[in-house]
């Protein structure tokens, strides 16, 4: 219900099943998710592989930002502006058993993704600063931001499971391999 022109054109998303994420969102999401697990927990720091994975995340972040401007309606930044007020209202609604249908990220998820992107940007920026430009003073910031990414990722997983349970919408399926038509099945 954002703009008048919006209401008269474009596909209508039946609200009951949640957002059917497009392939660009899915690809960038899973490459970043895999990279965070690999670089944060498994791959040895200061290895060449660690750097390569970092570049891949930078690429996904850049692609997602581009997609946030030219992408599908639900993927565009304008569909999920960060708002503490809306997030608070949404949380209160959840406590009362309300699950308003979402056309993009829900208001809490929106704050989460912006925090995640910001943290990733810091991790990548400091990583490149150390690796390419030999600015080793950035190591502490790199570590702190990387830990923040892991905390946000854990919170994200908890949030998705909780929201899926409460709303009955399988959010995980909407981000994985499921393709569906927008009509009845």
């Amino acid at each position, binding site marked *: 219900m954002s703009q008048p022109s919006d209401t008269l054109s474009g596909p209508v*998303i039946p*609200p009951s099943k949640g957002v059917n994420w497009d392939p660009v969102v899915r690809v960038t999401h899973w490459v970043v998710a895999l990279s965070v697990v690999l670089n944060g927990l498994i791959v040895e720091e200061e290895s060449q592989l660690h750097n390569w994975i970092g570049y891949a995340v930078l690429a996904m972040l850049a692609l997602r930002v581009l997609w946030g401007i030219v992408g599908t309606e639900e993927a565009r930044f304008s569909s999920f502006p960060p708002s503490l007020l809306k997030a608070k209202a949404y949380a209160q609604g959840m406590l009362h058993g309300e699950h308003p249908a979402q056309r993009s990220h829900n208001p809490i998820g929106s704050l989460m993704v912006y925090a995640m992107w910001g943290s990733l940007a810091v991790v990548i920026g400091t990583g490149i600063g150390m690796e390419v430009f030999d600015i080793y003073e950035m190591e502490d910031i790199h570590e702190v931001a990387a830990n923040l990414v892991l905390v946000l990722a854990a919170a994200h997983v908890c949030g998705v499971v909780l929201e899926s349970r409460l709303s009955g919408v399988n959010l995980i399926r909407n981000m994985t391999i499921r393709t569906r038509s927008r009509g009845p099945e």
Partner: protein
Amino acid sequence: MTEADPRSNTHNRKPGAPSRRAGLLAALVAVQAVCAVFFVVDVTADFTWDGADVHTAFEAVIAVALVLGVIFGALEIRRTLDRIRRAETALSIASGALAEVIEAYFDRWGLTAAEANVALLAIKGFEVAEIAGLRGASASTVRVQLAKVYAKAGVTSRTQLLSVFIEDLMGEDLIGK
């Protein structure tokens, strides 16, 4: 290469081939984005350490080309997805899902239960007096509710309200370019 064939959508119930094409395109653009990032970082590093030379300049051209490739790739994916979604909307209407689509529009417009009921009856062709009779309300109440429906839908008449749904049925080809 990225134009979705509309026939594959109208003949099969599932969005199969064009959807897979969009997925493949997304994966390709993702790989291209990784290459672009590598070249951009490499060029920046070379320029910082070695200054501008032929090698750096050549790499810079590649970097710019890759970045442009990613941007145009993303735009192509957007077009393909839009096409798929239009086809799906048309298909779901053709499959007798008009009621659900109307409901989804009502939901989007934020109609109250009473307004949605009045709007549905209006779309079905009932006159104000008939709607009032069916709902056990006064004609003036129905008229006010109908006016609210028009305002929320951004239309000015019952015909226009109906055309919101008819537009989806006809598709872009009939509207013509």
